[in-house]
């Protein structure tokens, strides 16, 4: 079945390893020869099935949770469409919305829908359906336990109504610069009104999710496998992808394999086509064997820690700043990750237009960190950990299970902070346990949140108009309150950019957010025979245009 006779079988001198433990010679030797990729024509070929190996779909299918989990987002992306498409560089282009207008200072918007778009149950994706979706994203339905989409600009949302079959008018109480961009956010997926009306328990059932995407749910067994098959009458793909007709692949099978090494080895041995979230440190050797490893960067926050200013010890600004300067991000990038990862310049990803260059406010400087702590009265004890008024400078860190290699990353951080006298304990949990860790509001919480427009950042900084209040400040930091309202209600991009710079400078100096590196949350190990896999601005691999070359 596998046509692979590449060197990796010899490299995998596994059992010899058991005996001689001398595989080093074999590993370096194979660096040179790359896999002989088949000549294969470049013109796409229809048909064929692929198997996609993923850790699991544990958080369930209730669509409008506060934020879509990184795993389920893959499947949603194939069975649903969005109004607007965002490419890797963050440029927006029409999709189900043919065109849109931004009126009177971005307070009113008119969206013109493509005609002939239908949900998989045949009902049309008309203005009424879009209005139903918009209301669900903006307000959710607390009576039925359905929450709103986290980063949707709900604070100033007024109404959405269908002026005719293919046009929708949306109005806001104050300028919502990021509204059109948010329509491309992976949380804003178009679902049939019938699905939206379902009670919460029914929504948890995947087969009830009626989307309008290029694939439809064929069959699934909870926790084991999920099979999507192509929708033959689909012809409203986003123009930016260079293809609008039906998908080329017949089916995509998502198979749950919890163990990272098993996923990697299964694809390498040719028994599956795509593996999700492989070990970053293996990328070089996997590429050397001719496999493609997609490491897309999404628009959103960097890999880093939201700091809880109410919890010990991070309630002391000196501690926050000492941590900020005590972490050697360069060593992390070199050790845990590869050249595909970029250093962080601020607490938002580099491809976000408003991202600035503030790396000197978190430059690695152990002496400075030590000095800050000495000045703040944290004296070093015998075990060279610092303490003050009898309490040791210590906190517990939980690696984010949604992001690859955070366990190795946090272990290295613990070592680095030990050098400045801060004791860091680690607690390892899986996806299910991570929600409980977030709920317990730890001093440092490792986040991985995407967004399409920087305006939506305002929704997390403070508790103003039901904000997520990441830093536990409530509204106590007036400067932060002003900055976040300014950014949310900025009338034009230029003035918003200036406010964004000031915000980034302030948040980093106050040590509210401790960036680590630009996040690559989703890694795709793809077998060389699969061509034309494209990535959107939210770093999801899209198999709509993919095809198999023999």
């Amino acid at each position, binding site marked *: 079945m596998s046509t692979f006779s590449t060197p990796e079988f010899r490299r995998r001198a596994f059992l010899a390893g058991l005996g001689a433990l001398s595989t080093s010679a074999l590993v370096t030797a194979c660096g040179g020869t790359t896999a002989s990729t088949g000549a294969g024509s470049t013109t796409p070929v229809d048909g064929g099935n692929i198997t996609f190996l993923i850790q699991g779909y544990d958080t369930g299918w209730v669509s409008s*949770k506060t934020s879509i989990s990184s795993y389920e987002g893959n499947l949603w992306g194939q069975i649903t469409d969005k109004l607007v498409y965002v490419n890797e560089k963050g440029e927006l282009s029409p999709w189900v919305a043919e065109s849109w207008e931004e009126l009177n200072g971005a307070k009113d918007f008119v969206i013109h829908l493509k005609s002939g778009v239908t949900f998989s149950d045949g009902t049309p994706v008309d203005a009424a359906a879009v209005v139903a979706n918009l209301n669900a994203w903006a307000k959710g339905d607390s009576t039925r*336990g359905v929450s709103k989409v986290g980063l949707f600009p709900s604070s100033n949302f007024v109404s959405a109504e269908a002026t005719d079959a293919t046009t929708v008018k949306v109005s806001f109480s104050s300028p919502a610069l990021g509204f059109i961009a948010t329509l491309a956010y992976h949380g804003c997926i178009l679902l049939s009104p019938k699905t939206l009306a379902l009670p919460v328990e029914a929504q948890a059932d995947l087969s009830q999710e009626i989307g309008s995407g290029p694939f439809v749910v064929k069959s699934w067994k909870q926790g084991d496998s999920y099979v999507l098959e192509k929708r033959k009458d689909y012809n409203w793909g986003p123009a930016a992808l260079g293809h609008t007709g039906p998908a080329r692949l017949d089916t995509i099978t998502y198979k749950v394999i919890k163990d990272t090494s098993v996923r990697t*080895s299964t694809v390498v041995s040719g*028994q599956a086509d795509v593996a999700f979230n492989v070990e970053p440190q293996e990328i070089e050797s996997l590429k050397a064997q001719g496999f493609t490893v997609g490491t897309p960067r999404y628009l959103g926050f960097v890999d880093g820690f939201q700091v809880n200013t109410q919890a010990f010890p991070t309630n002391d600004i000196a501690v926050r700043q000492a941590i900020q300067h005590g972490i050697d991000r360069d060593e992390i990038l070199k050790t845990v990750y590869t050249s595909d990862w970029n250093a962080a310049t601020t607490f938002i990803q580099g491809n976000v237009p408003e991202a600035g260059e503030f790396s000197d406010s978190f430059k690695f400087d152990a002496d400075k960190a030590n000095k800050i702590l000495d000045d703040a009265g944290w004296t070093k004890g015998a075990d060279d950990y610092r303490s003050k008024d009898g309490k040791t400078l210590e906190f517990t860190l939980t690696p984010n299970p949604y992001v690859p290699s955070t366990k190795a990353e946090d272990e290295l951080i613990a070592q680095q902070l030990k050098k400045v006298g801060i004791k860091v304990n680690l607690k390892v949990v*899986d996806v299910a*346990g991570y*929600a*409980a860790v977030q*709920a317990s509001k730890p001093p440092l919480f490792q986040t991985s949140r995407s967004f399409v427009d920087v305006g939506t950042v305002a929704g997390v900084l403070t508790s103003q108009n039901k904000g997520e209040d990441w830093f536990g400040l409530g509204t106590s930091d007036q400067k932060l309150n002003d900055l976040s309202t300014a950014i949310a209600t900025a009338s034009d991009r230029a003035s918003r950019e200036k406010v964004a710079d000031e915000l980034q400078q302030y948040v980093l100096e106050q040590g509210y957010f401790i960036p680590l590196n630009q996040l690559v949350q989703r890694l795709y190990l793809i077998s060389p025979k699969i061509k034309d896999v494209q990535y959107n601005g939210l770093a999801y691999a899209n198999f709509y245009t993919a095809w198999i070359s023999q």
Partner: protein
Amino acid sequence: MTSDYKRFALTRAGQAVVVVLLAYVLTFLVISVLPGDAITNTLRDPQHGLSEEDIQRIVAFYGLDQPVIVQLLLSLGRFLTGELGFSLQSNLPVSRIVGDALPSTLTLATSALVIAVVFAVVIAYGAQYLPGKWAAIVRSIPSFFLSVPNFVIGLVLIEFFAFRLHSFTTTDPNSPVATLFAAITLAIPVSAPLAEVLIASLDHESRQEYALVARSRGLTEATLFAKHLVKPSALPSVAMVALIVGELLGGSVITETIFGRDGIGTVVQKAVTGEDQPVLQAVVSLSAVVFVAVNLVADLASPLLDPRVKLREKVAA
């Protein structure tokens, strides 16, 4: 004879029921010692999106606001009527979760048991009839089997047979070949005690005088083994087979994790990380029921298989 046997069977069955109930109570006490109140803080977790009214319903259902002893009686009462409660994570009925997971673990456990018995018989027979040097090597196999953790066996088998020889794919762990290799991983540590009991009883029986007398009548080694040694040496192993059923259930936790099979083992693991008490309670007490049932059968069968066993003494013991 039969009235004696009936009385013997009834006493043993009575003891079995007592043991199952005590196992349930012990598990409940151990689980409810969980620091903090896992049930309430998993319920309060926003991720679940449970409304306040749902939480009250669950608290009332498990009697969480009452003292431990009341909770115990409540849950024991339900256990007797076969009612296993709801999972805290997926709020699916526990009976359905365990029901879905049971078939895959049962196939795994039974095939592992069969393989373990085959391994044990081959080792025991080899240790008895292979020439000197080889017999010594075969005799040391069980202690080697006992020394390798089953997660290492699993990793080696997957790496060699799945990834290199493609005899099975990890994407379909429930395929016959994949199940075979998972069963082998589970069978190896479990076959060791069985092999040692079989070797010991074979050694003992073959040194008995009746073996000598049978040889003096010209029986070949093979017929001697089949006709005379198999039955008396198998009897002590029947009791050991019943004992290792417990090992099988325990071992399945690791084996299923490595082979990516969804069975009772993975259910236990998810329940542990998610502090899902009702599921843990159900799985542990059901394993106790299976273990006690199998041992009861072995206990009741032994007087039928072995004429030497006197019911009188059995009852008194």
